[in-house]
């Protein structure tokens, strides 16, 4: 009896989770990403991209973008239902340090993961790619 109760509880939990997920509304908006980028501490935002003079950095970053980011932000940075486009004023005006800081920290509430699992060099390569698209 206890076993059945627990199995039912697990199923109900899963059902509630799915129901909660189904009710979510996702809207694409620039103000949120602007706030997120602006949240970088001053010293972090002031950092220069150490790969700025590397001619291959943007190409490598493009490869990483296609692998890790394009499924949500769109292959051409145009955005999707799930995440905003990155050809925006907020991203265009952000410093390299702010973008790298945001990639590393993410913003959990909005679904943007922390990409701290990517080595720092790869995050800077992605920054190079994004800035090459300005």
């Amino acid at each position, binding site marked *: 009896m*206890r*076993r059945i109760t*627990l*199995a039912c*509880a*697990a199923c109900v*939990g*899963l059902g509630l*989770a*799915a129901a*909660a*997920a*189904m009710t*979510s*509304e*996702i*809207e*694409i*908006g620039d103000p*949120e*990403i602007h706030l997120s980028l602006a949240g970088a501490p001053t010293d972090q935002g002031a950092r220069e991209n150490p790969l700025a003079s590397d001619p*291959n950095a943007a*190409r*490598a*970053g493009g*490869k*990483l973008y*296609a*692998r*890790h980011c*394009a*499924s*949500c932000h769109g292959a051409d940075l145009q955005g*999707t239902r*799930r*995440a*905003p486009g990155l050809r925006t004023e907020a991203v265009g005006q952000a410093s390299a340090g702010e973008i790298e800081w945001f990639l*590393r*920290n*993410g*913003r*959990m*509430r*909005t*679904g*943007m*993961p*922390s*990409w*701290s*699992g*990517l*080595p*720092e*060099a*790869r995050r800077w*390569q992605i920054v190079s790619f994004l800035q090459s698209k300005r």
Partner: protein
Amino acid sequence: MLRALLSIAACAACVTLASAQERAYFVAYDHHMEEPGSLELSLNPVFGHPEGGNAFAAAWLEVEYGLAGWWTSELYLTGQTTRDESTLFTGWRFENRFRILDGDRPVNPVLYVEYEDGTGAAKTVQEVVGFDNQEDLAAPNAESSQRTEQEVELKLILGSDVGGWNVSENAIAVKSLHGEPWEFGYALGASRPLALAASPAPCRFCLENFRVGAELYGGLGEQGNLTLSGTSHYLAPVVSWEVGKATTLRLSPAFGLTSSSAPLLLRIGFTYEFGNVGPRIGGWR
């Protein structure tokens, strides 16, 4: 009917291949969550030959879904086949992981809650707790499959990313719902990609696609008898290869460190990830 098929086809068209930050470990968890709306399928065979028992091949199928940036849910199905004995479905487990703090911190905590319903014949060794030992793996299927096990498992997962390294520490507590005392265990992992920067050209065999490391896991006794004596411990080198955009292969030989441990467990993992599979909680507003 046609309408239903068209709907399914439309959904399938939205699904994309995605590559997340896959953990290299088999037993230890790191602090990275599944991307919201992404589904990961993973098949993980385990091969072993405990002293005094027959060789076996066990496996778990893992279905992982990112419900939110802070919430990942997983369902596991396990089975095994033992030479000269039988092939069995050994149970299921349902787990949820909750990332507590936003952002990247020196140490990132994640809470893990799991319910498991299975039999004593399970041989996947997805964690080691209490006084788990190789006699459990050597017991005949006809005997061990008669023993049902319902357990609740809690983990505190701590993870850090420093200089390309991932370091993860798991504290494990398991409570049997049949009135047995709490059992405790641990899992530690460290891993690093072979190249920190990506090369500009697409490549399959370049160093950046490989991650190597090791994990250490074992039992710590039970409530009222916390000890290393009589417990099992394993040291397991791990290598992970990101074969393609969505596919990861992992390999890990786990070496038993004590007489209670099985001498060797060989683990193989095949993971495939789909992005944008379904709904999620939260989003850009």
